[in-house]
């Protein structure tokens, strides 16, 4: 009887442990599958025919259809540079430098991956339409209400979580495997300015 009980308890513990570790490795990734730079994370072998099972599971669950890292790089951020979750209740300043690529874009989503309703229908800034300084740097204000320069509206209404995606098409620097390389210091900083 005690053996049976121990088996049941072991099974329940194993179920919790197995599922939660699988969920974490599929949803967030580990250093083997993802690169992390500050708040940004990127799945290295996303969409590859010979990707590892974690990356394959991540892709299937996400519903996305990304291009492999030799042609495009995708970086997502769910937190600011200090690790605090991005939320519509706060205002952020995104500061970035020029990227050596054919085209790039920073887009804002809610946690369902949908763009956020706003009267100016502004959902992203890209290498062609962001106002940039003479040295190639730029500043994007992530805020509910209008800001000067590049204003990316985070929407009014009830507080919601935010997610940023930086997509880089045709990165010009590549490593030996042809994977597009983005130097760490080129990825934008996300600074929290104020919260309401």
């Amino acid at each position, binding site marked *: 009887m005690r053996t049976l009980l*121990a088996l049941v308890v*072991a*099974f329940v*513990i*194993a*179920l919790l*442990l*197995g*599922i939660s*570790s*699988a*969920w974490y490795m*599929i949803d967030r990734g580990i250093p083997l599958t993802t690169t992390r730079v500050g708040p940004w994370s990127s799945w290295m*072998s996303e*969409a*590859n*025919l*010979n990707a590892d*099972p*974690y990356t*394959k*599971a991540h*892709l*299937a*669950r*996400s*519903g*996305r*259809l*990304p*291009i*492999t*890292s*030799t*042609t*495009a790089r995708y970086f*997502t951020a769910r937190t600011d540079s200090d690790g605090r979750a991005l939320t519509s209740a706060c205002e952020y300043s995104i500061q970035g430098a020029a990227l050596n690529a*054919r*085209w790039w*874009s920073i*887009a804002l*989503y809610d946690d*369902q*991956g*949908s*763009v956020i309703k706003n009267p100016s*229908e502004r*959902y*992203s800034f*890209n290498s*062609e*339409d962001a106002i940039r300084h003479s040295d190639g740097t730029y500043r994007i204000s992530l805020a509910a209400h209008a800001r000067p320069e590049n204003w990316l509206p985070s929407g009014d209404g009830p507080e919601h979580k935010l*997610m940023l*995606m930086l*997509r880089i*098409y*045709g990165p010009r620097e590549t490593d030996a*495997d*042809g*994977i597009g390389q983005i130097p760490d210091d080129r990825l934008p900083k996300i600074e929290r300015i104020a919260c309401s």
Partner: protein
Amino acid sequence: MQLRIPVLFILLCLVLAGLIHIAAVLTLPTLAPKDAWARLKPLGPANTMIPIPPASPGKSVLPMMGPDVRYAICRFDLANGPVRLKATVPDDLWLIAFYTPKGENFYTVSGADMRRGQLDLIIATADQPVAEAGVDAPEEADQVAVVTSPFKEGVAVIRAPVVGPSRARRAEEALKGTSCAPHRNKPAEPQEQSEPSEPPTGTAN
């Protein structure tokens, strides 16, 4: 004895947890009900170019689509022979990516790779000979490339980045000028095996 039971117990937990972990990771891709393929299939028939409505609040065919990218897809089915994809590519930024039903990107070509902005591709499986030479005017023949698909089904996605709301219409118009349709080989004498397609860009990592 009092000590050995917990050790055994912990070991049992860990082994079971490992098995459950592996099972969960391996079965998830086949169980995921809303992967990209499942979202794209209801949009329309195979072997037709289908423009995807641009992402708008609460409405997006695929999650996290680029709001400043216009997409068109061709879900190809090679059961009845190769499929041909044609487009006039207006700028270097366009990307044409080919995927398996599981979302694996086996080939990508960019606007910058194309001569004279003309895209002309035949999608075929490895065992479908494509008599590509002479299917069109000779001056075009050198531009017909064959993309070998690892499976009978898949999807081609054209991405047209836009540079501001005013230019979105231009990208949408250009996508309308693309076509995707079954490709009929000339009933000519058997030709030698077509040239191998360009090496896929996405196999290196």
